[in-house]
C-alpha cells in the first residue's frame, strides 16, 4: 500500500529524512518509533502530501506522487501531533464541514458522520460545541473527521500524547478496530508499550535513517540469541554468584546481572529450560523467580541504534 524509494528531505543543509525506502502492505498497523528529531514527523508529512520531498519517490495506493502531492489527500488521512479545532462549531457542524470539504457525496454525509462518530464513540456529543470536548475526545474527533472520506491510509503522529490512561486505552482500541476494518495505519509514538499492543510491524528511525523495520515477531526473533530468561534473587551477592556460574555454561549467553536480577538467553528448547530451572533452584538459595521473558518493541528499540537525536 505504501512504497517509498530513497525518500530524502533536507531543511537547509540539515537532513531530516535520508534515503528512506519503505514498504508497508495493505491492512498493516505500522509503528514508527525513534527519538525526538529522528525524522518521524517529516516522514509522515511527506507521506501525507504536506511536505514536498527533496528527492525520492512515494507511491501510495497505486498513485505515484511526483510534483503534486495534493492527489494523496483523497486516499490519505493525517492526524498531526498538535492541532487546533474550530471550537465555536458544534460537533455536527464540524463534521459536516469536513465531510463537504472532502467531497463526501451529499446523500452519504449524514450516514458517514454517524458511522465515524459511532466508531470513535462520540455519538452522544453530536450537538455539543467542539470547545467543550475533553483532550481525548478532541483527539478522537480529529480521527473521526479524518475518517470521513474513508482514507485507505491513516497516518497518526503521536496520537496518544497528552491523553490520560483511559483515553489512551480507548485510542488503542480505536486503532485496533481501524486495523480490523482494513485501513493501513502508520502510528508514530514514543510510548513503545502501547505500540506493541496494536502494531503488527515497526519502523525504527534515527537521525533521518530507517535503522530497522519489519514485522514485530521477526524483529524480536532476530534480536534474541535463544530464549530470553530473567532470574530474580533475594540479594545482589546471590545474583553475582549465580551469574558467574551461568557465564561458564555453553547453553547460556548474554548474561547480565543488574542488582538482584539476571537477564540471559538460553540456547535450547523449553524442556531444557525447565531442567536448567530445576538445577539452579536445587543448587542455589534465594531464587525468587525464574521466567521466560517476552521480548518487546522496547527491547528491539534499545538494541539497535544509538538513540541519538539528529
Amino acid at each position, binding site marked *: 500500500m505504501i512504497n517509498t524509494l530513497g525518500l530524502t528531505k533536507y531543511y537547509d543543509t540539515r537532513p531530516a529524512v535520508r534515503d528512506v525506502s519503505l514498504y508497508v502492505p495493505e491492512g498493516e498497523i505500522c509503528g514508527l518509533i525513534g527519538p525526538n528529531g529522528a525524522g518521524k514527523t517529516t516522514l509522515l508529512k511527506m507521506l501525507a502530501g*504536506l511536505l514536498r520531498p527533496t528527492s525520492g519517490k512515494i507511491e501510495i495506493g497505486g498513485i505515484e506522487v511526483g510534483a503534486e502531492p495534493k492527489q494523496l489527500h483523497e486516499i490519505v488521512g493525517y492526524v498531526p501531533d498538535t492541532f487546533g479545532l474550530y471550537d465555536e462549531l458544534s460537533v455536527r457542524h464540524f463534521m459536516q464541514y469536513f465531510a463537504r*470539504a472532502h467531497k463526501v457525496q451529499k446523500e452519504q454525509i449524514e450516514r458517514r458522520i454517524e458511522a465515524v462518530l459511532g466508531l470513535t464513540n462520540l455519538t452522544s456529543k453530536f450537538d455539543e460545541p467542539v470547545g467543550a470536548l475533553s483532550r481525548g475526545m478532541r483527539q478522537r474527533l480529529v480521527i473521526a473527521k479524518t475518517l470521513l472520506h474513508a482514507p485507505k491510509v491513516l497516518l497518526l503522529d503521536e496520537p496518544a500524547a497528552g491523553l490520560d490512561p483511559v483515553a489512551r486505552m480507548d485510542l488503542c482500541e480505536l486503532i485496533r478496530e481501524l486495523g480490523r476494518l482494513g485501513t493501513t495505519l502508520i502510528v508514530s509514538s514514543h510510548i513503545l508499550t502501547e505500540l506493541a499492543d496494536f502494531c503488527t510491524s515497526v519502523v525504527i528511525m534515527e537521525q533521518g535513517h530507517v535503522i530497522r523495520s519489519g514485522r514485530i515477531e521477526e524483529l524480536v526473533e532476530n534480536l534474541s540469541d535463544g530464549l530470553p530468561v530473567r532470574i530474580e534473587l533475594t540479594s545482589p551477592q546471590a545474583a553475582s554468584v549465580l551469574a558467574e556460574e551461568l557465564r561458564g555454561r555453553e547453553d547460556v549467553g548474554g548474561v547480565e546481572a543488574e542488582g538482584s536480577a539476571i537477564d540471559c538467553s538460553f540456547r535450547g528448547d523449553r524442556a531444557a529450560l525447565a531442567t536448567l530451572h530445576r538445577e539452579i533452584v536445587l543448587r542455589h538459595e534465594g531464587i525468587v523467580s525464574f521466567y521466560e521473558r517476552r521480548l518487546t518493541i522496547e527491547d528491539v528499540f534499545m538494541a539497535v541504534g544509538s538513540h541519538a537525536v539528529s
Partner: protein
Amino acid sequence: MALSFYLAGNPELERVLRTNLPARRLLFIGGFALCAVLVIGGVTWNHYAGKEYYSEFEELTRTGQDAYWAMTVLLFGLLFVLAPAMTALSFIQEKLRGTAIFQQMILIKPFDIALGKFFGSGAASYFAAMIIVPPALLAAVLGGEELDNVVSLFMFLIVGGLSFQAIGLFISAAISSPTEKGLRGGLLIGPAVGVIGAVTALFFYRYFTDYKGKHYYFWSFYGMKVEGYVVILGLLIFLGLWAFAGAVRRIKASQLVPLKPWPVWLFFATAEALLVGILWGWQPTTSYYEEHAYGTAPIMYLMFYMTVNWGALLALAGSMALSRNRLREWWSAASDDPLGLFHQEEIRSSFKTFLIALSVSVAGLVALWASYHMDAPEFPLNISLFQLGPTALGFVLSIAAALSFVQYSAMQRFRARAWAGVGLVVAFYFVMGVVGFLFESRNNTPFVANPAFFAHELMRKDNYMGRTSVRYSSYDDRKIVYFGKPNDAKGSDPASLIIHALFTEGLLALGCFGLAYMKWRKIEEEMLEG
C-alpha cells in the same frame, strides 16, 4: 444571484459564517447598526429642528445632508476599514489556532477557500452596512444630494472596500512564520490594512463628489483625458483582482499544488501597462486650449516609475532567490527522478519570470521616456539614445547588483533569508542617497550609484525631461511657449556623469555577482561533499 447560489454551495463560507457570525453576534451587530442610525438621525435633527432662521424645509434638508454624510462615514468605516481588517486576519487566525494544516488537506478548491474567507470575514460588516444603507439613501434624498454623486460615492465604497478586503486576504495568506510570536505579529496586519483603507478613502473620496466633471482634476491615461474617479476605480479593481488571485496562488502553494509562472508574467505586464498609461506624456489640464502641462518635470515621473519598478523587482528577487534548501534540490536531482526534475524546472521558471519582469520593466521605461519626447508635436523629435541608453543600462545594472546580493543573502544562514538581503539593499541605497546629497556636486559616487538619481542628474536640464510646463500660445497657431523652463541650475558634464555612473553601477553589480558566485560555489562543494 448566480454568485449567491455559488456561495451557498461553498462549505468554507458556511464554516466561516458559523465560526465568526453566530446568531447572538448577528443580533448584536444588527442592534448596534440600528442604534447608530437612530443616534445619527436624532442628533442631526436635534441640531437643526426648531431653529428660527431655518424654514421647515431647510431644517429637513440640512438634517438629511448631515445625516447622509455621517452615515456614509460609518459605511466607509465598515467597508473600508473593518471588513479589510477582519479579512486580513483570516489566514493568520487559522495558523495561530492550529487549523491551517487541515486546510492544506481539504479538497475544496483554493479559489473557493479564498472566496469563502473573503465573504465570510466581511459578512459582519456587510450585514451592518445593509442596515445603514437604506436610511443613508433616504437622508441623501431628503438632503437633496445629487443622485449621480451618491451613486459614484457608493461605487467607490463597494469597489474600494472589496479591493482592500482582497489586499488583506492576500497579505494574510502570504504571511507565514514558524513561530507563534511571528504569527502574533502578523495580527497587526489587520489594523494596518484598515488604516490604509481609511487613508485611501479620505484621500480620494472627493474625486467621486466635488471633483467630478472638473477638468483640473482629470487624469491622463495614455494621453486621454479621463475623470479622476474612473482611474481610481480602475486602479482599485486592478489591485483587488490581482490581490485575490495572489491569495488563491498562496493557498495553492501551501497545498503544494505546482504553480504556473504565466500569471506572474501577466501581472507584471498589466501592472506596467497601467503605470505607464498613468505616467504617459501629454497631460492636458484645461478645456479651452490644448496644453502640455506638467506640475512636476517628466524626469520626476520617470524617477517614480524607476523606483516603483526597482521595488517590485527587488520584491520578486526576494521571493524567488534560491535558499540553501532549493540549491540542495537543484544539485541532488537525478535525471530519472521526476521530483528532482520538477524542482529544477521550478527554479528555471522562476529565473525566467525574473527576466521577463525585468524586460517588461525596461520596455515600460523606454516607452515612457519616448512619450515625454513626442507629446509636443512642434518639438523636434529627439529620441536621444545618449540619455536613454545609459539610463536603462544603469537601471539594469543596479537590478543585477540587487538580485546578486539578494541571492547571496539567501545562501547565508540569516533567519529572514533572502528578505534580509532585500532589507540590506534598501538600506544601502538609502544611505548612499543621503551621503550623495551631502556633496555639492551631484556627480559623486554615492549619488550616481542610484540609477534614478543618476537619471535625474542626467536629464534635469533637458528641455523634454526637465520642463515643468509647455503650452501652446493658442490652439490655432500651435506656437510653443514655455511657462516653466527646464532647471537652469548648473548641471554635471553628461559624458563624465555617464562614465562615472555606469562604472559605479557596473562595479557594484560585478562585486555583488562575484560575492554570490563565490558563495554559490562554496555551498556546492559543501553539499556535494556532504
